[in-house]
């Protein structure tokens, strides 16, 4: 019966390989967060999050990255709000108003699907050219436009997926009660409400962490963001610039900045999970 023994042995080996693969993948998450925590914690001080860079900050003197923290928060919030305000209506229009299966529906959905996959550097390059052509200098406004453009496909696609979860019967019942399409849409929105919050949070997370989009369009500044047509600092860029310094003190602060960004992201992820579990409760 050595044939059977050989086959069972193969299965045992395969099982071990699979478990190793799984451990590697999940482990990498902990590894990444852990490394940043380990390297960044020593440099995380109150000054870092409460002060702007003072003279010589990048060569090791005092200050913090409040400019970058606020800049990123401001940018991400405005962009996400705009992208939601544009993206949700587009998705509703495509799913409730446009005839399912029509050319417009399939074409638009495919287009947004593909736009979802276009890297932010391309958006950044385009926005940069546009800004050069229009004579706008690198500023918060440029960053907002870029990140908004980048985020719209994300919102559209996520809402698309959410609307797919609405049971077909619900749509039919509502229509047969004589509701208009807009009233039906409002009901769908209510059904997927927790999902919408999740989508917004995820879009926010993407907006705040993006480097390539802001690199070319937002510039950098040591001041707190005040006017929309001025350059502004952003967290990812702050990390980037500090990291390329040869001075260990500054590099350490880069890790601390990365830690701050990680915290923000983890908060977003936890909120997303809490919301997702609430959605499960009300599912039909």
């Amino acid at each position, binding site marked *: 019966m050595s044939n059977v023994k050989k086959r069972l042995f193969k299965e045992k080996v395969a099982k071990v390989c*699979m478990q190793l693969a799984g451990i590697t993948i999940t482990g990498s998450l902990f590894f990444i967060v852990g490394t940043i925590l380990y390297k960044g914690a020593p440099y995380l001080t109150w000054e870092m999050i409460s002060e702007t860079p003072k003279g010589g900050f990048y060569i090791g003197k005092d200050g913090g990255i409040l400019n970058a923290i606020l800049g990123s928060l401001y940018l991400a919030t405005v962009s996400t709000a705009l992208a939601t305000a544009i993206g949700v209506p587009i998705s509703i229009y495509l799913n409730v108003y446009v005839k399912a299966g029509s050319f417009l529906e399939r074409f638009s959905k495919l287009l947004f699907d593909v736009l979802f996959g276009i890297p932010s*550097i391309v958006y950044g390059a385009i926005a940069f050219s546009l800004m050069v052509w229009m004579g706008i200098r690198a500023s918060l406004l440029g960053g907002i436009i870029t990140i908004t453009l980048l985020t719209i496909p994300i919102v559209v696609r996520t809402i698309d997926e959410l609307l797919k979860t609405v049971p077909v019967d619900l749509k039919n019942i509502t229509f047969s009660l004589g509701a208009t399409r807009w009233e039906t849409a409002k009901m769908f929105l209510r059904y997927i409400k927790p999902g919408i919050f999740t989508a917004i949070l995820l879009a926010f997370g993407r907006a705040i962490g993006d480097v390539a989009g802001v690199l070319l369009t937002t510039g950098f500044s040591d001041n707190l963001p005040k006017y929309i047509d001025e350059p502004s600092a952003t967290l990812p860029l702050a990390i980037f610039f500090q990291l390329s310094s040869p001075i260990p003190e500054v590099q350490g602060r880069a890790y601390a900045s990365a830690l701050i960004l990680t915290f923000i992201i983890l908060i977003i992820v936890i909120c997303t999970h809490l919301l997702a579990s609430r959605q499960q409760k009300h599912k039909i």
Partner: protein
Amino acid sequence: MNWRLIKDKLVERSFSLLLFSSLIVIALILTGLIVKSVPLIQAEHLGKILTESVWSPLKGSFGFLPFIMGTIWVTLISLIIAVPLCVLASVYLVEYAGDALRSMVLPLVNVLAAIPPVLYGVWGVLFVVPLLGQFVGPLFGVETTGYTVFAGGVVLAVMIFPIMISIMVEVLQTIPQELKNASLSLGATKWETVTKVILIKAKPGLLAAVVLGISRAFGETVAVLMVCGNIPQIPKSFFDAGYPLPALIANNFGEMMSIPLYDSALMFAALLLFVIIFGFNLLSRIILNKLEAKAS
């Protein structure tokens, strides 16, 4: 006139306006990219740009080959690492793991997806680069700083885990239990059923997942930029530095305006990226849509 109907019409008009405006904007963007790239294509032959390997804008020579090769190297390495790991892990999650394990691991994988690329870059610089430079390189008898395409590939691999695993798990979950029963009741072991039946049936979906992973890897800019060395040469080995296409755009936009044709070149790079990724995304979406239709 019914107020409700008016509202409905109003909404319809305004929402459709948004849709069509965005479609127009996208068309304008694409046109803009093409228009901006034209000067370069007019100055040099399209074929020459794509195959020339000297990149020296000051001298007016714009060979894109090193960047194309750099992107290919980094993407290939990431695939070699990520695809087997993802397939194995997905099979384990769907076929062998208990519910508890599955419900713990999948959210963790999604968290990986939420981590901003710049943090992957930091991790790459902190860990992967020194590891390569101080341990792995010498192991192979190679002298390297660690800033290599290999480092880029490793970082990219971790970045594409989430998207590949989530699709692969979904695909594997659609395989009907009776098909597996048919194989099991012939006396096959579970692993034999996996390799000879399940993976074969799931092949199109798994392929779509890989294609999506490729397009993600192609376009990733920052993380790779931080660890790959940024030397415009064609990589000849894992331990060579490279210079992928996105990094080219990111690093040089500052000098764009001062050197003739440089801005056109960078726009061309962006256009190239756009087209390639567009193509890959399109392909995988078509495959996935076809599968979804077949399943329902």
